[in-house]
């Protein structure tokens, strides 16, 4: 999927996260993770984000995640929503969302 515009999904409430997506000028995939539990869960959060992006075949874009203690399933859903919005896509390929 190709990121063509800026998007945002999620909130900064507890147990949630805010995902900001933007097109990449350099054609690279840049992921920034911010979390108050980064020391304990930073690697896990990054893994969930990168796996979700890979499932959606996103290989370029700026992804900024501000985590507020979200479960993996919430991280996956918010990243998916932000990418769908950033790609201007209304149709979901459910095979990619598992």
């Amino acid at each position, binding site marked *: 999927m190709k990121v063509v515009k800026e998007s945002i*999904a*999620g*909130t900064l*409430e*507890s*147990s*949630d*996260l805010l995902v900001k997506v933007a097109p990449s000028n350099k054609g690279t995939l840049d992921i920034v993770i911010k979390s108050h539990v980064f020391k304990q869960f930073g690697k896990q959060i990054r893994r969930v984000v990168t796996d979700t992006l890979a499932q959606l075949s996103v290989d370029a874009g700026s992804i900024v995640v501000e985590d507020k203690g*979200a*479960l993996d*399933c*919430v991280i*996956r*859903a*918010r990243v*998916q*929503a932000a990418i*769908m*919005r950033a790609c201007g896509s209304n149709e*979901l390929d*459910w095979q990619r*969302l598992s």
Partner: protein
Amino acid sequence: MKLRRSMLFVPGDNAGMLSTSFIFKPDSVMFDLEDAVGLSEKDSARLMVFQALRHPAYRAIEKVVRINELNTEFGLKDLEAAVRGGTDIVRLPKTDNADEIHQLDALVERVEKACGRPVGDTKLMAAIESASGVVNAVAIATASKRMVAIAIAGFDYLVDMHTHRSSGFEPELFYARAAVLHAARAAHIDAFDVAYGDVNDDAGFLREVGIAKLLGFNGKSLIHPKQIELLHKAYAPSEAEVSHAKRVLAAADEAHRKGLGVVSLDGKMVDPPVIKEAERTLELAQAA
């Protein structure tokens, strides 16, 4: 017997509630994609619910997804997310007639086949929210083999009836409650009473639970976790009721052993309906 006393509403875009609702152990959790979710968040909520359905923490709880109406731009997408995510039950809001259930049934089957779920695995329930729905309740309740429950939803129904909620006896809901409940019993499915909106009014909530229980509803739709324990306690049989139920079953066993059709206990006849009620009491007590 699947207990359906408490069905907790969880807004589909509320990460906090999606992450914690299982802790409160409702009999069923209902992820809401309809009224609780704003138009701009429907897409994100749908994905949140799809992911939550697959979370191991919800494996032991009956999962229900309230989709948007099928004639909206969201309904079909919600249905895909619910069935593919593995929901146990799809709840259709604002059900006015049996044709809507027939349509839903066919669509669910299509998604089940597409995603590899066994056909018939996904159950259905209908929310009755209008005068038309109440009048057609029997046809709705019997419209599909997938139907496991119907619920009366008070707010829209009362608007449709040109009235509003009162406190106390609530005569404005009497006919709808009775009609929906009779439809459920005739169809041998479960019935849910209306949600109680004031989460700070425990006394009012328990008064309404008393009405629902006495009428014969299986339980209520709930909008706050604190209502779960109140409801479960109110629905739990008393020690005296449990003791009586055990004596009824013991008397029935003895009659069976002696080859008697009917036996009396404390001067009252113990026949199949009494035995059935005693069994239900013990099941409720065990669950509580």
